[in-house]
């Protein structure tokens, strides 16, 4: 694990409780989609995990949703603040050999998928994205996905933007779905459970979250129950798992 003293270049509000943080590193090696960084905050003892949402040279973008004290603290940081970060952590996602692939984002789940879209785009793999959220205000990063994807489908629970309904209501009826080779999904646990029931017949990689202790494989705090009846560490064995292999 590498620790960094990084600088917050920009802290921009994207929507209700949603913030985009641009962070400048002094020293940064390869970062793969799916990997994450752990942020020290002044509000909690343990670090907080955030996926890399995008990269531009030595700058990483993170997108966060305020859900508790740690995220609230981060959301209030002003530009120029110094950040104590550890990372990159976790395994990068297995990149597909061919497309098209589809990204399935529920709410803040769009964050890590954006960086995946960027990498897929660089490798000229065709990529579609289905971005869902509760309301129009909570639909984030739509423009960024637009510039990287073949097709972007928007959906909101209340119909205030794009199609109306849950991601898993809309997905099965999409015409594009048939030639998709791999799905990548990130969203709340209920979304993964519903995706599992849909049984899309193609590999589906789930970007999981979990309350973490160490983020470095030492404490067993983050385990997700596998179909083998054992817990697997989201921090070092994940955070991306084949949906088939985990219990929800």
């Amino acid at each position: 694990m590498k620790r960094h003293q990084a600088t917050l270049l920009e802290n921009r509000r994207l929507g209700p409780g949603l913030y985009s943080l641009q962070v400048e590193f002094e020293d940064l090696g390869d970062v793969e989609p799916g990997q994450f960084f752990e942020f020290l905050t002044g509000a909690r003892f343990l670090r907080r995990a955030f996926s890399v949402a995008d990269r531009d040279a030595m700058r990483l973008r993170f997108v966060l949703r305020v859900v508790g004290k740690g995220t609230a603290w981060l959301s209030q940081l002003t530009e120029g603040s110094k950040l104590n970060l550890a990372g990159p952590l976790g395994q990068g996602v297995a990149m597909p050999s061919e497309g098209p692939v589809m990204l399935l984002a529920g709410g803040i789940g769009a964050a890590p998928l954006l960086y995946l879209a960027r990498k897929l785009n660089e490798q000229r793999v065709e990529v579609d994205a289905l971005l869902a959220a509760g309301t129009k205000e909570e639909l984030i990063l739509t423009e960024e996905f637009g510039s990287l994807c073949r097709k972007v489908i928007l959906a909101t629970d209340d119909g205030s933007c794009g199609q109306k309904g849950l991601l898993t209501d809309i997905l099965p009826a999409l015409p594009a779905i048939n030639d998709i080779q791999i799905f990548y999904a990130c969203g709340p646990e209920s979304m993964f459970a519903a995706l599992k029931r849909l049984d899309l017949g193609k590999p589906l990689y789930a970007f999981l979250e979990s309350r973490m202790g160490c983020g470095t494989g030492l404490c067993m705090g983050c385990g997700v129950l596998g179909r083998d009846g054992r817990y697997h560490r989201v921090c070092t064995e994940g955070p991306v798992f084949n949906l088939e292999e985990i219990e929800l």
Partner: protein
Amino acid sequence: MSLEVFLGKARFRNPLVLASGTFGYGLTHTHVIDRMGAFVTKGITVQECVGNPQPRIWDSRETVINSVGLENVGLKRFKEETLPLIDISTPLYVNLAGVDLDDFRILIESLSDEEKIAGFELNLSCPNVKEGGAALGQSADRVGKVTSLARSLTTKPLWAKLTSNFCDVRETSKAAADAGADALVLINTLNALVIDIKGRKPFLGAGSGGLSGPAIKPYVLYIVKEVSRQINIPVIASGGVTSGTDVIEYLLAGASLVQLGSINLVDPEAGLRILEELKRYFEQEGISPAGIIGRLEER
């Protein structure tokens, strides 16, 4: 300036010990382990143990509550698969988590001859399991029995890791010492409950957990001082250390070794930083760790 400490004949290159459950099995971050005084594994049970349901972790600014439970590979896999992989130059202590006398017998009989293992930490205190653990450790009688049994089965150093939950840890300490423990580890986490008021249910998957972290340091310091003055075997402190200053406080209070637990979760290299802080202190003071153990003055 040497920072070494002896517990009986056992030598530790410095007073820092990586605490059970916060550094895995010693398979990663070995550059840290190799600089420490000792390393303790996650608790090992006779049977493989899947651990507790999620969520397992909660924290505040100065506390961590965990309910990992004794998730571990179990004795057989530990011995056959894990132990051969452990490659460290630091004394390896295995934390043994039994529910009853039989468990401890099986664990020690199976592991006692392993050369790689320097000694055992008897987990008489884990608050995250229904049977054994804390319940065992709350009775001086049972602490004595487990320790005696363990003593009869191995000549390796035996550390008795005790709890202060719902018991008088001075009494369980005495029982462990009388039964032949080589050292006392004070203390394991405090029983703790976090409530989700919306769901009107415990927040942690296991119902409750164990509290650790900097907030408990003054509490554990008091216990270490009390017990080390009353009991004639070395005390190993465990509770809330995040800095070299904390380690020095524990040594002054009477601890011979000091464990690092929760801080490893924030930074697995914390041990290296704390070691540097200690070096600086002991160099400046021109004194050795052994020279300050228990040297707290009265007010």
